């Protein structure tokens, strides 16, 4: 088998292993809970019998390994267990709570990515091309500040400007079932803008750094000495070699998006999975925390994996093996 195929298979195996290990970590979080949590979940009205029944439902009397396989088997079939919240009355399946929220989050993240990635890469290219110009310095200073700020400050500045001073949008992004696509777009405008600002700052800086690193190579000087135009040098000589780093930057930022969404959803009271996870952590609703953590971690791992594979597949040294 050639080097390219072998490297990609290795990465896939490594990614799969990471997901398995993450699932073990997430699963064991239940193991470390204090012994009396069953009664605290069920509340004061719980009788010893209901507590015992609850413990049995969780399978706490079985060995941990067996329970792990039972749990992961359920997860693979979309069964994420039952929520602890409102336990004493009617148990709600976790998937029923999490899935609609997940779509909302994907909607938010998808629109942000569609806007932020092209803008960031273009700005990064321009800043690299006009390095040390006034434009570059301006972009540099503003992105440095954006990165150093807490996300909630960016969010509230956006709210202050576009919802309070000039009330173009609502400060709260509530979604309701009957909304049309355009109405939904209007509802997520501010969170999308906030997330985009943060992500663009990260991505643009890294794109710029990757391009500048490549521009220092002797083959770029050679292209200049062959009389190539600056734009052609960037697109034909620098970009193919910076592709690997840039793809990594994009994946890193998308993964960042997945996490940054948590704070932003809370600020805008957006019914997404990040908001759900924060509530679950506060209420110690462990099955929901587990489900959210698993989804976040798996997304993060898969995005990084895709970036890795694209970076490998575009590496000329691996593509054209000796």
């Amino acid at each position: 088998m050639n080097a390219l195929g072998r490297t990609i298979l290795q990465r896939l195996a490594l990614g799969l292993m990471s997901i398995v290990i993450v699932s073990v970590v997430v699963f064991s979080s239940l193991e470390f809970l204090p012994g009396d949590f069953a009664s605290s979940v069920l509340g004061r009205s719980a009788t010893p019998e209901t507590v015992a029944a609850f413990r049995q439902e969780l399978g706490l009397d079985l060995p941990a390994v067996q329970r792990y396989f039972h749990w992961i088997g359920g997860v693979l079939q979309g069964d994420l267990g039952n929520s602890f919240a409102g336990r004493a009355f009617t148990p709600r399946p976790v998937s029923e709570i999490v899935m609609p929220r997940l779509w909302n989050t994907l909607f938010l993240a998808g629109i942000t990515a569609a806007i932020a990635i092209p803008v960031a890469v273009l700005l990064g290219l321009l800043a690299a091309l006009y390095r040390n110009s006034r434009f570059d310095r301006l972009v540099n200073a503003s992105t440095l500040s954006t990165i150093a700020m807490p996300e909630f400050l960016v969010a509230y500045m956006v709210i202050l400007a576009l919802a309070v001073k000039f009330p173009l949008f609502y400060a709260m992004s509530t979604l309701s079932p009957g909304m049309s696509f355009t109405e939904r777009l209007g509802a997520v405008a501010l969170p999308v803008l906030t997330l985009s600002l943060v992500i663009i700052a990260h991505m643009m800086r890294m794109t710029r750094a990757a391009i500048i690193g490549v521009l220092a190579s002797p083959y770029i000087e050679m292209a200049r000495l062959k009389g190539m135009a600056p734009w052609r040098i960037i697109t034909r000589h620098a970009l193919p070699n910076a592709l690997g780093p840039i793809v990594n930057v994009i994946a890193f930022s998308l993964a960042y998006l997945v996490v940054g969404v948590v704070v932003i959803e809370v600020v805008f009271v957006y019914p997404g999975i990040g908001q759900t996870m924060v509530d679950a952590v506060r209420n110690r609703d462990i099955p929901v925390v587990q489900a959210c953590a698993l989804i976040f971690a798996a997304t993060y791992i898969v995005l990084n994996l895709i970036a890795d594979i694209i970076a490998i597949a575009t590496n000329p040294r691996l593509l054209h093996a000796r």
Partner: protein
Amino acid sequence: MQTDNAHLLDIRDLRVEGESDGQWSTLVDGVSLTLRRGEVLGLVGESGAGKSTLGLAALGYVRPGCRITGGQVIFDGRDLLSLPEDQRRPLRGHRISYVAQSAAASFNPAHSLMNQTIETAVQRHLMPATEARNAATQQFRRLSLPHPDSIGKRYPHQVSGGQLQRIMTAMAMHCGPDLIVFDEPTTALDVTTQVEVLASIREAVEARGTAAIYITHDLAVVAQMAHRIMVLRHGKLVEEGETQAMLDAPQQDYTRSLWAVREVQKTTLQAAEKPLLTIQGLNFSYGKAGPKALEGIDLTVPRGRTLAVVGESGSGKSTLGRVIAGLNVADSGQVTFDGQVLPRRIGQRDKDLMRRIQLVHQSADTALNPRHTVRELIARPLETFHRLRGSERERRVQELLEMIELGPRYADRLPSELSGGQKQRVNIARGLAAGPDLMICDEVTSALDQLVQEGILRMLLNLQAELQISYFFITHDISTVRAIADGIVVMHHGRIVEAGPRQDVLSPPHHPYTELLLGSAPQMRTDWLTDLLASRAASASAP
């Protein structure tokens, strides 16, 4: 092409400055030069002479971090420096082209060699792509590249360094330029490869009557290539003249001193009675299944003498040095040092053995910790091996500084505050401080300018006479071997092909590889390359 008798290139009073750490310093200081059509001008000088900066200025180009502060670069009647960029750019690659020192780094890894070769012609619409490809293949053939029809489909990392350098020449000649700047095109190559590349470059330039600026630090090389030579130093012109005249009768002291290198010749010593180091049947490979890097090595290093190990890159000479030092562990075979079997790993050797065998690395830049002063560097072996402290240690540091011909005032400097030659002396002093019986010198002079090399070789010889140290001297350079060796071992592909006392190895009859190696070392006469190619052609056609 207004007038035929005008110069093709006329550089007048050029000044270039470079910035480092916020300070501007002069790189080229008022140099003027002229070049006629079809003429090859050699630019010679040591590192820091401003040769490359001047060569690039011929294309109206300065590196980032440099600026032109005065002068004119008139190419074919137009001043490149006052032309707007969009009129200057089309000249590059078409009328003036450039061949860089490191072809491996100067080709874009993402594109095939053919696409890079024809890029200027196709982008500038000088010829259609098919025609450009055919012309490139022709060039590849003329530069005697193997598989000229298909080599263009390959990518840079799939082709050897010598071949890449020739493809870069083909790329430079592709649009039929009036002028090519060659910037040390063979410096990174082994001598046997260098001969082939020099021969193809010279032939290609002569065939098309292209003018060229040939930049090099190697006088013997420039003597083969150039009609006229300019000697530069510290960004200033020292001397200029026709090649033959410059070789025969240089006017300036500096030029004479450059010409007079390699005077050092060791007086022949009796082969010493007792061997210090003996190697028998040594094999080594990287990894368990790796190819053999060393195979069946047998040799002895006599006490107080120098054994020079010569070979090209990949011959295994440095690996052998590292096996003796205990950094690489041999698969089989025995190394005996002063009558006792040497433990294979450095970790198995006692402190006294560590002391008695010292390794001096090629590059003082990476071998000396940049954060330690000269004193700290030299004092550490005195502490670890001789337990010297306080004033006693300080006295010894001063002695060692005297031995390497640096004064006590250097003790407080950091390596970055020393020149290349001084750093290498400190590197050697650190080895000496241990008080070794055997010093493994791994290409210790290779990265230095000729004159600096000369000084260090002289110093090493004096130290040997004084301290009776044995040198295991690893080098690729025949003239260094002449200067320092008592015995010579010639290595090729991990094996010893010839060994013996210096006179025996250096005088015929030779082993065929030794013959090739010795013949390929350029000599300081203008017809060396012509003679060599003629004699090789003759012996190839002979039965």
